[in-house]
């Protein structure tokens, strides 16, 4: 992606967000008669977002610097990144329903396997840590500082 494309995308996203915020704030009712109302500041901020994003878009489009059209090279690993997001999503969905310990055991093992490569992948160590860590955290929070964690369908 070029710098120009990146800045254009950022400006458009914020323009759309500002527009949406302005529209959503129109429905906020004014309760007190001598007050500007709870919708006033959101509308004010939405207008500021729109103006700033429009300014950024204009500057980006008017930018004649040839370097802003050069592609930025990045060696990102999509499988690692999106895989991490996917595992986090599954973990968070399972966190409450399946319970803290079981969901954490599965997440930790899967995430360690995903982040490691052939040179440092040690499934047995990962499995041991994946069991020990959630049990220790659970014990610390539930019994140590009396802060409950989700027990889930299996009761732990």
């Amino acid at each position, binding site marked *: 992606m070029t710098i120009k494309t*990146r800045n254009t995308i950022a400006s458009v996203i914020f323009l759309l967000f500002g527009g949406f915020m302005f529209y959503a704030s129109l429905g906020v009712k004014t309760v007190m008669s001598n007050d500007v*109302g*709870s919708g006033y500041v959101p509308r004010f901020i939405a207008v*500021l977002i729109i103006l700033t994003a429009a300014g950024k878009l204009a500057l980006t489009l008017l930018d004649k610097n040839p*370097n802003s059209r050069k592609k930025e090279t990045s060696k990102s690993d999509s499988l*690692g*990144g999106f895989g991490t997001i996917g595992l*986090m999503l599954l973990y968070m969905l399972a966190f409450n329903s399946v319970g803290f310990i079981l969901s954490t055991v599965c997440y930790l093992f899967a995430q360690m396997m995903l982040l490691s490569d052939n040179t440092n992948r040690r499934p047995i160590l990962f499995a041991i840590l994946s069991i020990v860590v959630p049990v220790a955290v659970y014990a610390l929070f539930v019994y140590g500082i009396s802060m409950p*964690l989700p027990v889930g369908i299996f009761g732990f």
Partner: protein
Amino acid sequence: MIMQAFTAIFTPVCLGLIIFGTILGIVFGSIPGLSATMAVVLFLPITFGMEPTNGISLLVGLYMGGISGGLISAILLKIPGTPSSISTVFDGAPMAERGEAGRALGVGILFSFIGSIFGILALWFISPLLAKVTLLFSAADYFSVAVFALTIIASLSGKDMLSGLLSGLLGIALAMVGMAPIDAATRFNFGNYQLLSGFDITVLLIGVFAVTDIIMVGFGRRNLSKKAEKKPYQLKGYGLSMKEFIQQIPNVIRSSVIGVGIGILPGIGGSTAGLLSYTAAKNSSKYPEKFGTGIIDGIIASESSNNAVIGGSLVPLLCMGIPGNTVTAVFLGGLTIHGISPGPLIFTKSGNIVYGIYLALIVSSVVMLVFERLGLPLFVKLLDIPKHILLPIIMVLCCVGAYSSNNRAFDVYCVLGFGILGLVLKKLKIPSTPLIIGFILGSMFEENLRQALQASHGSWSIFVTRPISLCFLLVAVISCALTVRKNLKDKKTAALAGASFHTEEEEG
């Protein structure tokens, strides 16, 4: 009040928490990829159930340890553990190359301590004076202070001011979800009752900082197995003689003053303080050509300055409720949760807590001086912990922290949402620090704007007719103008040099 604070801090539990927090902070600071912010964010929910003094003391220890721990990896791995230690690498790494890593570490630890004490003394003496001045502030003045803080942070947290402003405005927008101040009207909850109380600051911080960082590591997982070469070290005492210590006194005073000044200004941060002090030390040195070749002057300038920032950054936080950086933003959350309202009246309403913070900072500095030196072999060993094991465990702690903040799974989902938001911002090169500051200042901004407009019957002239308000607005405008000018100049220079111009930011 000082005696009350003294008896609250010098209890076995509180001292134990300060020691634990400082040591753990050093661990977080020393491991590249972890930060002081992450340490404070992760432990904030654990403090909820504690006595205010105990909870705040733990956070103080984590902050102090987190900032000073960065020098270990800066010297031994040539990678600053925290952004604050960037300038420590300049002379620390060449010293390590020459086999003087131990001396560099010892000097760094000792002058981190001296810088911290300098910052704490500045905090102790400046805060009450500033608090007296802020008693004169009206709603209009506070609104202008919020505008000033936001524009300064937006201008200084990245090279592209518009991106910083957009990030700050997005933060204010996120703060508007839920019930409005003054009339409690519901906004932007889209029928979801979980959103009635708005987003929790802890959840936002965990998401935008910790979770985003872990996702970013996922995208760069191929680099995880690459290990940086670790230099061996030997150290006796703190690695310098009394004569050398006396010679360095002007350097440490100058650097600490810069650190305190930078800390008081919102949004600039420890790395800028370190770099500025390093440059100042170099410019005033009799042997500037030796800087960067491995001399203790550079390490002393960097470390005393970045630790003095700690005390400085707490001045606007305690007196006006304005966090200068991400760590103090979390601190503000911690204070609020424990029922302490930062502002001009904090010294009369919660004086014992304020003095407790001062004492906790002093104790934490001493703990850092002793334990960082004694535990050096252990902290060096911790640099070997593989990231592919450590980061998933931190992710689990993030979820536990988010869940514990309100005992609801909704906050855990929000953590991932904010993590993805942080990722999008990173990919678009939009700094995330103004987002956090905007979120925190959002309610102050709105409440004071509405109160001021109520008082002036809707007239905006109140913001320019009150001298204090006008001053802050003028400084905000001047800062914006200077940043725009600098941006244009940098763009021109980058264009001439054939390089690309992009934003950078500092986080804890």
